[in-house]
């Protein structure tokens, strides 16, 4: 069983917390420590952002995280090294990379899948690669038992949900709102209705992200979702912290969110 499947199986219906941070933010030497800090706080799965020069789907907070990481020249190969380092002392927490397609194009899909598997990566969420264009990448990932994680959106019609369901592995990521990451227009009731509809087609767990800012919204989302993804809010915490306090502050914020959904 994959780490992601094992993770959801072990939760046995309890809700998963999936925190997101950008690899290399604020400094590449801190990332592995911050990942362990997320686990200490109660992270069930970690989404690790791969810095990209043109993060089209991200709001200003995660754009800045990418820019801070890129200032240290953090690229996909460094991100894989960080995951390998993390795996030395954590064999169970699933790690899903989240990023854009071009860094994978640059490395080559097969080469990426091989190196990611060796590093201990469990899933790949490629924001700008919908299932229509994912055939070659998904095959390369499957070869190495890495789950391709696909997005669903409020604008996705039912027949398309059914099609994406055929490709989905690990979990699906429901984008809770029309907008970029960290946006402020989350509508909890709408999300609840949409998730109920998604369940008619989707067999894997459903995670929800974009715009979840605090314990209250996390709790409300967790009523219907299987997993709650929090990104921009954590990145803001990193921004506000000093290098010395970042890990501690992340751990305590994750613990607060975890308590809210438990």
């Amino acid at each position, binding site marked *: 069983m994959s780490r992601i499947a094992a993770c959801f199986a072990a939760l046995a219906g309890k809700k998963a917390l999936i925190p997101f941070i950008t690899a290399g933010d604020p400094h590449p030497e801190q990332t592995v420590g911050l990942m362990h800090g997320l686990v200490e706080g109660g992270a069930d799965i970690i989404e690790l952002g791969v810095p990209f020069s043109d993060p089209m789907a991200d709001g200003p907070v995660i754009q800045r995280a990418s820019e801070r990481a890129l200032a240290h020249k953090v690229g996909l190969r460094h991100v894989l090294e960080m995951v390998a380092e993390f795996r030395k002392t954590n064999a169970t927490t699933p790690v899903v990379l989240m990023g854009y397609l071009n860094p994978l194009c*640059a490395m080559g899909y097969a080469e990426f899948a091989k190196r990611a598997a060796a590093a201990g990566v469990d899933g790949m969420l490629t924001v*700008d690669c*919908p299932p229509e*264009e994912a055939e070659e990448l998904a095959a390369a990932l499957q070869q190495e038992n890495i789950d391709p994680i696909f997005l*669903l959106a409020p604008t996705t019609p039912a027949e398309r949900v059914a099609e994406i369901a055929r490709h989905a592995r690990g979990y699906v990521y429901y984008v809770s709102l029309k907008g970029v990451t960290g946006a402020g227009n989350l509508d909890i009731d709408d999300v609840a209705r949409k998730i109920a509809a998604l369940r008619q087609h989707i067999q894997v767990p459903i995670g929800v992200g974009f715009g979840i800012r605090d314990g209250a919204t996390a709790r409300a989302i967790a009523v219907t979702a299987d997993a709650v993804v929090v990104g921009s809010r954590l990145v803001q915490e990193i921004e506000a912290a000093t290098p010395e306090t970042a890990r501690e502050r992340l751990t305590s914020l994750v613990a607060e969110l975890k308590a809210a959904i438990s």
Partner: protein
Amino acid sequence: MDRYDFPDARGHFGPYGGVYVAETLMTALAELNEEYARAKADPAFWEEFRYELKHYVGRPSPIYHAKRWSELLGGAQVYLKREDLNHTGAHKVNNTIGQALLARRMGKKRVIAETGAGQHGVASATVAARYGMECVVYMGAEDVKRQSPNVYRMKLLGATVVPVESGSKTLKDAMNEAMRDWVTNIDSTFYIIGTAAGPHPYPMLVRDFQTVIGEECKVQMPEMIGRQPDVVVACVGGGSNAIGMFYPYIGVDGVRMVGVEAGGNGIETGRHAAPLSVGKPGVLHGFRSYLMFDEDGQISDTHSVSAGLDYPGVGPEHSYLKDIGRAEYTAINDDEALKAFHDLCRYEGIIPALESSHALAWAAKVAPTMSKDQVILVNLSGRGDKDINTVASLSGLTL
């Protein structure tokens, strides 16, 4: 050549093009594709499009024999397709009219656009005023500085211009920000992409609206010289004026097609915007094409004296035409383009856009190697009034 029928149903030109966007945009793109298919089959749509091009834009644009300049060059005869004479001063308006008519069919009251040199922003602001739509234009902060006359033009036309401070603060960042706006306001907003790039169906529909350029040339050249030109040449940033010129000529044997990218300070310096010349296939802004990026896949900063060519990617159909060898692509440096700019001013009384000056410079370079009865047709895609501040400051002057 064999039958050329691209893109395929999923928007691919061979291995290029496609729909590489976040899920939220997929349905909007599918709707646009369906609406365009309906419009394409609707004679009334094209009738209105042609009416607007004739009475509002002033088409057909003439072809002009640049005799003095040709004599000076001492070889092939250079003819200019005068897109600079269009309303708003460039070819961009052909496309914005087509897309605005689509937006109106789809009931969208708000349009957004990205712009580099400001020509597409002006053309978008123009049609928004013409059809009574709200218009927001995203423009890199760097470009806002170097293209201030166009910024003011857009404001006069009622558009809101948003300077984009992220990344390299140029065209690619403006496109990122326009995509972010679109994903947020997807129900109300139509995104008018300015070049033959972006996710399917944009490369196809921008091409279709711009092919009026090449279609006119195919009729006008035989009227003027009794045959088609030996070479057609156009500058290539995203590549909309070039594909508009090339597309009708793809199946015409014996017409060489040359696309000219921005060589900036020289390809060897790395400071350029020439993905077809030295890039590799990659994915940005919703499509797969030749692209400039580093070993980590980060998109490279580009440089060109011309803001409109300052883009690290290129429309997917050009990548395909390069691979199959139907069109050839080369680069012209800033200083060569500037020389052509000044020469056209002085010998023909035409101030060309710095973008178009790249195509002119290629003609200047190659014409002397050709015989006097051969013909080069240059797409003079825009006028250069917008560039006078840039050119003046490069000459050490302040206006």
